[in-house]
């Protein structure tokens, strides 16, 4: 993956701000920056080729911690600016033309997808039901001096395949498939991660297993 050095530095600046403010233990990095972090798990040539500027941080439990996290100060000190959508109030932090940090949270029960306030941060996240499953399979990866949480590589691809039929906009379906096809050979080649893939699939409901099988069949994924 070709990563602009400045962009990479901006990402690690944000991670340092997360650590300093006490946020790091409460988030999971998902999306294309999780794939960037997977290069530290699969050191044998895994190189995802699509990377965007948005850093998606999944905040599984918006009620935690009970104390405030002063992320604003930590990120402002590193040149990040805060922006809030005037309609949804969902907040984001941006750094120049380099990265944009957004927070995503779970949608539970009968709730609709939509903005959810993260109490400790005092900002609104975007609630998405599709990502709930990622919370059940966290994976800790040590990079530089940080211990970061990402979804297990196996659940990363399973989740993408499960949401494939309803994924919008259309181009994201193809982007997701490409991510799956790039990552899967490395999972299969790893005893640990291929075993985890089998375990995760076995834990899916019958309906989900059937859906997964169908999506794989339709898209020549073996």
């Amino acid at each position, binding site marked *: 993956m070709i990563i602009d050095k400045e962009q990479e530095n901006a990402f690690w600046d944000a991670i340092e701000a997360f650590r300093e403010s006490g946020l790091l233990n409460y988030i999971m990095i998902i999306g294309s920056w999780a794939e960037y972090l997977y290069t530290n798990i699969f050191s044998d040539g895994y190189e995802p080729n699509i990377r965007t500027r948005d850093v998606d941080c999944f905040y599984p439990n918006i009620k935690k911690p009970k104390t405030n996290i002063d992320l604003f100060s930590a990120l402002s000190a590193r040149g990040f600016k805060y922006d809030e959508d005037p309609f949804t109030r969902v907040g984001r932090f941006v750094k120049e033309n380099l990265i944009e940090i957004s927070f995503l949270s779970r949608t539970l029960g009968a709730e609709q997808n939509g903005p959810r306030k993260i109490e400790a941060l005092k900002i609104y996240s975007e609630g998405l039901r599709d990502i709930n499953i990622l919370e059940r399979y966290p994976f800790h990866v040590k990079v530089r001096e940080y211990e970061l949480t990402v979804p297990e590589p196996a659940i990363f691809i399973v989740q993408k395949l499960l949401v494939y039929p309803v994924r919008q906009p259309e181009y994201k379906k193809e*982007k997701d498939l*490409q991510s799956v096809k790039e990552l899967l050979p490395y999972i299969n080649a790893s005893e640990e991660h291929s075993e985890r893939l089998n375990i995760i699939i076995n834990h899916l409901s019958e309906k989900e297993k059937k859906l997964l099988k169908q999506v794989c069949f339709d898209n020549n994924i073996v």
Partner: protein
Amino acid sequence: MQSLVIKGILEDELERTKRMLRVYLKQYENLHKGSIYTKQVGNRQYCYLNYRNGDKVISEYIGVPNSEKVEKIRAEISERRQIKQTIKTLKIEQREIERALR
């Protein structure tokens, strides 16, 4: 299919660039502009903020050197210059993405 993915990503990136631009333009408008000029009167120094307002050049007294207000304005001017550069870069990127999407 690959072109669909690239087009989609470019559209997303265009939206993101516009959002980033909006953030920085808002910041830019709220920061002091101009330059600080220090004037010596006898053995005392006084700082003035010089800036252009239409055709006029305004020279506004802002305090003595190293005072909190002067340092705050100095920091804002410096930040404004950096933001100006960021805005320039974002506008170039916006044009490039729009061109690629045509």
